[in-house]
């Protein structure tokens, strides 16, 4: 079990202007099969990826935002969102999807996946990872 590494996917781009957000999500889902210790970070424009109520019917693009709510089923349940990034953009946690996971060690209790952290705390989280993937 000692070969389990801490993988972090760092997301810093808005969802539809470029392909980065979607590509990241694809890689996260593929990587989930390798049973590593996975977490996601949403920094800068990356926080826009998690806004709730996205409706892409008017722009002819796939709405991939519902996929974030499936991450908990893949044991991807450490989703770090940077507080300063939200605030600078006029957003709060209430503007984001409510992402949860079920804890099998706690009678399948539903728990929050999103951890709102300060920039300084995010720096510490980044520092403790083994591998960083940047999108």
């Amino acid at each position, binding site marked *: 079990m000692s070969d389990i590494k801490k993988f972090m996917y760092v997301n810093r781009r808005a969802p539809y*202007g470029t392909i980065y957000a979607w590509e990241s999500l694809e890689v996260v889902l593929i990587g989930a099969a390798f049973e590593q210790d996975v977490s996601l970070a949403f920094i800068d424009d990356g926080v826009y990826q998690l806004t709730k109520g996205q409706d892409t019917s008017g722009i002819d693009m796939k709405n991939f935002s519902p996929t974030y709510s499936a991450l908990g089923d893949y044991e991807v349940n450490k989703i770090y969102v940077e507080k300063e990034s939200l605030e600078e953009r006029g957003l709060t946690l209430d503007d984001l999807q409510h992402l949860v996971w079920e804890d099998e060690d706690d009678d399948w209790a539903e728990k929050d996946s999103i951890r709102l952290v300060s920039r300084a705390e995010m720096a510490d989280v980044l520092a403790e990872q083994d591998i960083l993937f940047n999108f």
Partner: protein
Amino acid sequence: MSMLHIVNKSPYERNSLAAAVGHMTDGDTLLLIEDGVYAAIKGGAAAGNLEGKTVSVLGADLAARGIGVDKLVDGVSVVDYGGFVDLVEATDKSQSWL
């Protein structure tokens, strides 16, 4: 001569919005599309750029990004694709700050 200034980049990643606003003159209109619409969120650090300007935002791009009209800076008007065309027609020239 009036100009339509079109911005499609996030103001938090590029300087397109600042460039556009810096080159606007009286009678010009700013149109925010694609990732440019993030500039119109009330309370955002970029919102001050819109002060005193005539600003329109493309509704389909707001909806795609989950931004409700209630989140927008006061005075901004939301337009559809037809409204986009109307703005192009109503101004002498269009400038896209890519």
